[in-house]
């Protein structure tokens, strides 16, 4: 059971990285990024292609792929999202949704729907003795790195002036502008950063999950549930809910396997009935 709980936390690490990106993007831009799963998929494919075609190893991909995808996110925000932002939110909703389908199909056309193999990096091929059980070293690395990344983001958000501006702009974008902060200047890097986090999650997923064009679409629905449970726009809530949902669904899988696919959504419905703004959401944010 402990091992299953640990599996859950590792799964939760992916939810947390993806939900964190979605939450900062939603908070700062008011955009629900439906293409987030597609960028996760591109992260995994990016590292696959780098290794398969160019012999570039995992460690380089771990840095290079998120950086490249982050820059792609910057371009995307500048060229499209920014122009659609003054219109009804539905336009960016449709745009990111369409973009996800296009990216998925482009990858499908090139590589088909079958899963591509990606070996674990040699350094992390073994197991680690965690006292009560041994565990694959790679999974331990994924969990540790994701905790470090989430903690680093948390520190930046709570301890720096940049973090203060992001929190303020997330809570009250219009007022923050009226107080003399050029919110628009921070929107592009925040969007790029959110996309880079999705790319990072994708690179991390490549050695332990099936690398195929639909891997993002499958995962992102659950991540949306995670963000809603944590409280839309709540950065802390999205990370906490990410790990918690990973844990709950792994344990659910163990005890009530029949519910493994639906448990998250039952939880989401229950949380919404109890706290309509999510666990860490603010009631005002609904109005």
């Amino acid at each position, binding site marked *: 059971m402990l091992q299953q709980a640990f599996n859950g936390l590792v799964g939760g690490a992916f939810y947390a990285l993806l939900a964190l990106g979605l939450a900062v993007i939603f908070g700062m831009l008011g955009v629900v990024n439906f293409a987030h799963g597609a960028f996760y998929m591109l992260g995994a494919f990016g590292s696959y292609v780098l290794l398969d075609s160019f012999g570039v190893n995992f460690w380089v991909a771990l840095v290079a792929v998120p950086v490249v995808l982050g820059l792609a996110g910057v371009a995307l925000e500048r060229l499209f999202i920014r122009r659609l932002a003054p219109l009804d939110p539905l336009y960016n909703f449709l745009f990111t949704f369409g973009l996800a389908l296009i990216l998925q199909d482009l990858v499908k056309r090139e590589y088909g729907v079958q899963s591509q193999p990606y070996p674990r990096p040699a350094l992390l091929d073994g197991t680690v003795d965690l006292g009560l059980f041994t565990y694959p070293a790679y999974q331990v690395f994924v969990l540790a790195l994701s905790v470090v990344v989430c903690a680093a983001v948390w520190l930046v958000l709570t301890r720096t002036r940049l973090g*203060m501006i992001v*929190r*303020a702009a997330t809570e009250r974008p219009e007022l923050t502008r*009226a*107080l003399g*902060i050029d919110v628009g200047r921070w929107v592009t890097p925040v969007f790029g950063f959110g996309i880079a986090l999705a790319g990072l999650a994708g690179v991390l997923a490549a050695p332990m999950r099936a690398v195929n064009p639909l891997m993002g679409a499958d995962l992102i629905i659950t991540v949306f549930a995670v963000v809603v449970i944590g409280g839309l726009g709540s950065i802390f809530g999205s990370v906490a809910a990410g790990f918690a949902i990973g844990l709950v669904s792994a344990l659910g899988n163990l005890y009530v396997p029949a519910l493994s696919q639906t448990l998250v959504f039952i939880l989401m419905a229950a949380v919404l009935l109890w706290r309509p703004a999510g666990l860490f959401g603010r009631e005002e944010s609904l109005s």
Partner: protein
Amino acid sequence: MPSTDPDPILRVAGLSAWYGEARVLREVSLEVGRGEIVTLVGRNGAGKTTLLRCLMGLHARRDGTVTLSGTDITRLPAHRRARLGLGYVPDDRGIYSTLTVEENLTLPPVAGPDPWPLAKVYETFPRLAERRGFPGTKLSGGEQQMLALARVLRTGARLLLCDEPTEGLSPLIVQQIGGILREVKRQGTTVLLIEQNVHFAATVADRHYLLAEGRIVESLDNDEMRAREHELLDYLGI
């Protein structure tokens, strides 16, 4: 009774604004002289809040010109206006729950030649010093209002736009806010104030504009305001 300042800090000419098809401001023109406290009085829905939002650059559908100290700011985005010395205190006080009291104070960048140092803010508002590490919205309503005022004073803004700072507060706190506004005026800062409390308006302000259905219908000085207090109270429906 218009401003007698030949070089007013704020000049608004032919300002109109719309919400969808509905026109909520009609050709509003007004002036505020340096160091004056001027109030906007009017019923709910008269367009007072929309007027302040237009001055701050927060209302997209508008027409007319706004000049700040001789600079045409009509087309400037909100953050540039703030940096030119407009200090905005919104009707809901605009205190961030995800920022501490001190972060709420230090968020806006300095925007004038004579900003209040944090030490002076804390000396004037000791309660804010005591609670500097608390989330901004953990303060009481009156304390939040003090925080909203202190926040724009710390930037050194030259013209404060205050949207009903006394609304819903106890008489004691209203008095304190009056004291702060007089102190601010002594320093030479200008205030454009939305105020429903006619009596309070007459005690702190120099002049008053009466707004009805999106138009400025009258401009009054303090004596006229006092003489017509009952009539105005009836009119405002308070």
